[in-house]
């Protein structure tokens, strides 16, 4: 028997509540399956379970539970599962001990993606309103971006259907701007109290990257085009292969390297707030794959439906301000990460090229890093590696 716990979806989360179970008691779960929707200050998050077995004892819905609380129990595959969730009085018959070979043959899905029911995109506001109205938001037709169910869709459905008996909403606890503000305050306050930041900057010549990007986008339909942000992301991910000391966590007085380059991509939420979910193994993805991942992440960050692993896995954060942003940014590290890379908007500047002053698209890159885990010399190597990668965009 193993406990499935309320995950800590970032350094700034204290409680959450299960608003929906996507599995029933007695269902078989596989590592990585999305089993529940948990409302946090970051919106409704699809929570994955990394246990393998039969799930039961599901925690009640809409109850605020602290991080680490038991949400369910899983009779792990290979253990005696028969009476796992029967009343305690039922005597458990010892299961035949499986030989190692048989244990290895425990059914593990080998093909295809996990058969997770794809939850419809529902904005947190829509989910709350639907709950108040006694509607199932996931079943409603969505008219938002990528078919997301918006508040308007819920209102429309409500006016179309006979008035339902509204179950009383227990307590607020979903995404709300004030709560997210508080969570950001807690995390950033901790960062500035605990982490001795050092800062470095590099002015990056973006001409080659811009030319490559213009060329790529020229003959492609809009949905296949790339944003400059994707090149910045890939260049940073590749640079981190050369400087892995900045990719990971500072915990218990020492640095622990990340198990891959999982870039937390900072996304500003409309109406305030910020979330930086992971793009897993960003260094191994092609530019079009990264573009898709980024679009999908932005969509889900705003409409709800981020996955728990996306909030817990980032090994570094990138804050890219986009083409209407400021010229540069000095980031605040998201603990327990050890670095944050910032990019300002691309802008045309006079620059000396081969002894001549020329107008040139330039971008300001910055690094804020944890001085407990690294020194400026190393940080400089990361910025240099990013710059080098952007000078050869065809290698990205």
């Amino acid at each position: 028997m193993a406990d499935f716990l309320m995950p800590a979806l970032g350094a700034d989360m204290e409680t959450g509540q299960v608003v929906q179970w996507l599995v029933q008691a007695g269902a078989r779960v596989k590592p990585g399956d999305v089993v529940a929707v948990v409302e946090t200050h970051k919106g409704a998050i699809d929570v994955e379970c990394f246990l393998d077995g039969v799930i039961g004892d599901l925690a009640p819905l809409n109850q605020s539970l602290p991080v680490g609380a038991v949400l369910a129990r899983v009779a792990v595959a290979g253990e005696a599962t028969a009476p796992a969730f029967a009343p305690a009085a039922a005597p458990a018959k010892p299961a035949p001990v499986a030989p190692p070979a048989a244990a290895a043959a425990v059914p593990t899905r080998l093909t295809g993606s996990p058969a997770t029911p794809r939850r419809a995109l529902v904005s947190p506001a829509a989910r709350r309103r639907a709950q108040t109205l006694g509607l199932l938001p996931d079943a409603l037709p969505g008219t938002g971006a990528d078919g997301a169910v918006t508040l308007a869709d819920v209102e429309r459905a409500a006016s179309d259907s006979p008035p339902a008996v509204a179950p009383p909403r227990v307590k607020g606890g979903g995404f709300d701007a004030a709560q997210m503000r508080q969570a950001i305050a807690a995390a950033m306050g901790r960062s500035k109290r605990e982490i001795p930041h050092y800062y470095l900057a590099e002015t990056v010549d973006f001409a080659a990257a811009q030319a490559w990007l213009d060329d790529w986008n020229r003959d492609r339909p809009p949905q296949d085009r790339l944003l400059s942000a994707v090149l910045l992301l890939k260049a940073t991910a590749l640079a981190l292969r050369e400087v892995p000391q900045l990719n990971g966590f500072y915990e218990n007085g020492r640095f622990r390297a990340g198990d891959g380059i999982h870039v937390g991509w900072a996304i500003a939420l409309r109406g305030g707030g910020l979330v930086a979910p992971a793009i897993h193994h960003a260094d191994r993805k092609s530019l079009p794959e990264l573009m898709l991942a980024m679009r999908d992440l932005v969509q889900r960050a705003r409409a709800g439906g981020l996955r728990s692993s996306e909030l817990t896995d980032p090994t570094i954060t990138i804050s890219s301000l986009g083409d209407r942003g400021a010229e540069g940014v000095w980031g605040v590290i998201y603990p327990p990460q050890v670095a944050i890379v910032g990019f300002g908007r691309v802008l045309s500047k006079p620059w000396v090229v081969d002894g001549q002053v020329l107008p040139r698209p330039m971008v300001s890159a910055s690094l804020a890093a944890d001085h407990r885990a690294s020194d400026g010399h190393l940080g400089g190597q990361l910025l240099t590696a990013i710059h080098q990668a952007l000078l050869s965009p065809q290698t990205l």
Partner: protein
Amino acid sequence: MNATDIRALAASVLAGIAPEADLASVGEHEDLREALDLDSMDFLNFIIGLSQGSGVNIPESDYPRLFTLKGLVAYLTR
């Protein structure tokens, strides 16, 4: 598509990107990106929606012509 169709298309695409935005409050000559706080990704999604809804490819070099309501109506009705 006539100007009315294009305005309706723009409104419906924007409703998906910035659900809280009120397109009626945006002036004809105002930069939509500023008025509705659209970032690079939002604007690309806007272009994708306009392109798919109108059948016009909209090359990247033409983006500046679609920064305002007046501009995009003129561009897509041509």
